[in-house]
């Protein structure tokens, strides 16, 4: 039972990170429900109860805007991300939603061909089932690596 759900959740996380790692940015918002919340915020602030984020989206529209801006407005060096997820735990909620946590690691490869640890952190997710498919109601990326190297362009 819960093993099936666990497998489903892992499949969701795997699909999520492979969407980002294969540069299918336009598909990224489709993994969220319309009325979603997505945030990237340093653990440093979360631990102090301070709100300052580096990315803060309270609607799917804002996710799409971020993608459009990345594609058309912003300038950043070509870079390759690889996401790795481990330590997945979850709990089904009374309202049928699922709270899910996991650790993530992002390795960043520059044009010169060097790969470095770019960021680690925790995903704090809320997942809901929408027309039979699991989607993110909330995805909060709490990152450890408070010194962001150069810039953060792509979603985590």
């Amino acid at each position, binding site marked *: 039972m819960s093993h099936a759900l666990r497998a489903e959740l892992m499949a969701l996380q795997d699909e999520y990170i492979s969407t980002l790692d294969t540069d299918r940015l336009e598909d990224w918002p489709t993994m969220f429900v319309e009325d979603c919340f997505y945030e*990237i915020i*340093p653990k440093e602030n979360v631990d102090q109860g*301070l709100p300052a984020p580096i990315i*803060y989206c309270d609607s799917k529209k804002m996710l*799409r*805007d971020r993608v459009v801006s990345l594609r058309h407005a*912003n*300038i*950043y060096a070509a870079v390759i991300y690889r996401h790795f997820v481990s330590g997945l735990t979850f709990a089904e909620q009374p309202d049928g939603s699922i709270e899910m946590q996991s650790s993530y690691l992002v390795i960043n490869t520059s044009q010169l061909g060097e790969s470095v640890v770019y960021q680690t952190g925790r995903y704090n997710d809320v997942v809901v089932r929408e027309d039979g498919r699991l989607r993110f109601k909330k995805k909060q990326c709490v990152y450890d690596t408070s010194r*962001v190297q150069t810039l953060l362009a792509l979603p985590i």
Partner: protein
Amino acid sequence: MITEKTAPFEADGFFAEADGSRVPYAVFSSQEIYDLEQERIYRGPTWNFLGLEAEIPHPGDYKSTFVGDTPVVMTRTEEGGLAAWVNRCAHRGAMVCRTLRGNATSHNCVYHQWSFDTKGNLLGVPFRRGQKGQAGMPKDFNPKEHNLRQLRVDSYCGLVFATFSEEVEPLDEYIGETMGGYIKRVFHKPVEYLGCTRQYSKSNWKLYMENVKDPYHASLLHLFHTTFNIFRVGMKAHCVTDDSHGLHSIIMAIKEGQDETAGGDYKEQNIRSYDEGFHLEDDSILALVEEYDIVATNHIQPIFPQLVVQQIHNTLVARQLLPKGPNNFELIFHFFGYADDTPELRNLRIKQANLVGPAGYISMEDTEATELVQQGTVRDGRETSVIEMAKHEPDQSNTLITEKLIRSFWRGYRKLMKFDQSSAQGA
């Protein structure tokens, strides 16, 4: 081989141009120049931004930070005053304060438990008087002579500054009237701290200084700026420096009465900075709640050497600039709001954090640009940049098409570093 063995700044005619329009690239990568900066700038006659008073509101609150690359702790004293001391134990040099932030009325060095008060005065030395016939410290040991190295501290509108210098003028003179006025614009009422984000760039700190004194780039590098009419040529502008050393400055871009044909100007230049096809589905992020006499979309104000005061739309940030060797700097974005913000306004400020910081729609390009300069210049220390824009119109201060603030910066830097003399000889 002279050029290889002599410190670059000692070569004849190094940094010879007096008008700040030609900067030898060596200043961005030389370790010797970097070390000299630590001496003549950060430990010299400057006031260095440490943080906001709002970060340490209560007695005993403290924060670890830096002046240049010297670790310094700023504290709120028991009496509610401000203090700062070098984070190096008076005994054998260990960092006394080991956490970024906290509250403590006494700071104990873990190595041998020497303890210091919030002002950095030595409180206690374990077994100072020995124990049961075992000797302690010599009789002539005078605790008063073994306090932590203490800095002069002062605050301006809730911004905390410290200096190693006994000579430097008082803080308000250092900031000056003109710059003071602009600071007061943003800090016109009590602020509340909202947290910080950090960005680390593989480039020299002065490249970032150039960047925040460069309205010319703002309208060309940041497509987001121009497309959404946040900042573009044609806006009313203030581009002003302080009245004394010219190291501080302000760029303000004002919407009202702006020439609406600006878009056209970019098309004339036919440069890619203006893309009409592009719009946002959710433009709440671009709201601009009017909260100041002058409604500016951008207020970018570097106070040399460690602070940049920023207001972009309704997001408020005190940026702290820290050098980390010749080839790196760290940028700390201290976000704040006003104590009396409505929930809606507070929420808007947080949402507009999307505009700035390491992932900011209109700031992420800046560190990218400074790194491109670092990489492009590393092997050409004796070549120079060409900083000419509006040079022949030094008094134009209502334009965004100018590099005058940058030239002013380099003139002040050259003086502070005493390159004017060395190159005088050279000349």
